């Protein structure tokens, strides 16, 4: 029996398909979910999300949210998630620079936090985008 995975963000449903294995970064560390996993509800932290199906692998950047496993149905409620191949590298690089600059200027605590979140997001995007680039150039 396969896992059925749904990744939902406030904007749209990003991913909906069957999967063999899902690897998620959570508050208690990275966990892998295989079919027939026990019911689980946990919090996702910013990181990389890996979905395996057969030999194919999908890589996503995720900035946090909630994960629910229920009878082989996995739902991920993400604040923001993007597939590695959909990352716009130039834009992410620019966002990273902008966020770094904002953090250096001594701004208010709120602005700092916003910039920090933006920085984490762009770094993650670049990291996953870099990974699939490497893989496709090897094959």
């Amino acid at each position, binding site marked *: 029996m396969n896992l059925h995975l749904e990744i*939902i*963000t*406030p*904007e*749209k*449903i990003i991913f909906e398909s069957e999967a063999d294995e899902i690897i998620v970064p*959570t*508050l*208690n560390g990275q966990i892998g979910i295989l079919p027939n996993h*026990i*019911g*689980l*509800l*946990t*919090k996702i932290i910013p990181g990389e999300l890996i979905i395996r199906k057969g030999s194919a692998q999908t890589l996503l950047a995720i900035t946090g949210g*909630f994960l*629910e496993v*229920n*009878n082989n149905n996995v*739902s991920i*409620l993400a604040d923001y998630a993007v597939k590695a191949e959909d990352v716009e590298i130039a834009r992410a690089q620019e966002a990273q620079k902008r966020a770094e600059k904002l953090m250096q200027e001594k701004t208010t605590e709120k602005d700092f936090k*916003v910039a920090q979140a933006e920085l984490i997001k762009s770094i993650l995007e670049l990291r996953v985008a870099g990974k699939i680039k490497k893989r496709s150039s090897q094959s």
Partner: protein
Amino acid sequence: MANISLIKRRIQTAQNVSKTTRAMQMIATSKLKRAQDSAVASKPYVEKLTFLTRNITDRIDPENISDYMKQVDINVRLLVVVSPDKGLCGGLITNLLKELLRYDNSFNNVKYIVIGKKAEKTVAKLGKEIVGSFDFGTTLPIFENVYPIVKLINDQFLGKNVSGVDVLYTNFFSVFSQKPNLSSLLPIKLPDDQTSGKDVKDTLDKIKRNSPYTLFEPSPDELLPSLLSHYLEMAMFQYLLESYASEQGARMISMKNATENAYEIIDYLKLEYNKKRQEKITNEILDIGGGAMALAYE
């Protein structure tokens, strides 16, 4: 003579007005389309979030419930009013403010958070305490706007300054119908079985049967607050979106009516203008004819 040029000027004015209202109508139409799209797109997320939150609240001890869900015994309420910044959207604002005054009359002690300039003016006249005031903006609300609003609400409610938080916004039924709606935000009452229908309850029961053991990492007590605060943000965002869609829908219809009225006036004035012009020509011909006759008799 003077009469004709006056009519001509009025035609010009009506045409200018019709151009402006038509442009506003088209802008509202395209904005409405986007607002509707994004409201539809966020629906699965909201449903899932509500579902998760219910799932978790069903499983924790009633004693352990989060502060968000506790009743507080204070005779002060907080009302969040969501109104447009700009007018020219038919009866929307009037209806909203009527509802606001009714609320204000039925509770003695009300604090306010106002979003949108139109509500701000009215609340300021009431002389009640305004905890916070935000602009609504004229573009699609973005999620970041919600954080400062929710933070204020949190401070007031968790700081036990108010016993409950209500939101007054305009509910979007269709392009033709938007009604002000009062909705209770805090303490959180999740949509129960009456409102969310039997399906949700059935699925919840099924889940409990199928997987009686659910792991919570970290524990439900730690998870719940972050889920609930997220739920709060999402709910607030929905209210903003709903109000925005209503504003644009109302503006679209009222501007459409205004354009049609302007066209009607133009038609009428043109008819009048042509009549006057014809009359003038006829008179001139009569004059010339009369003159020629007089000459011929001599």
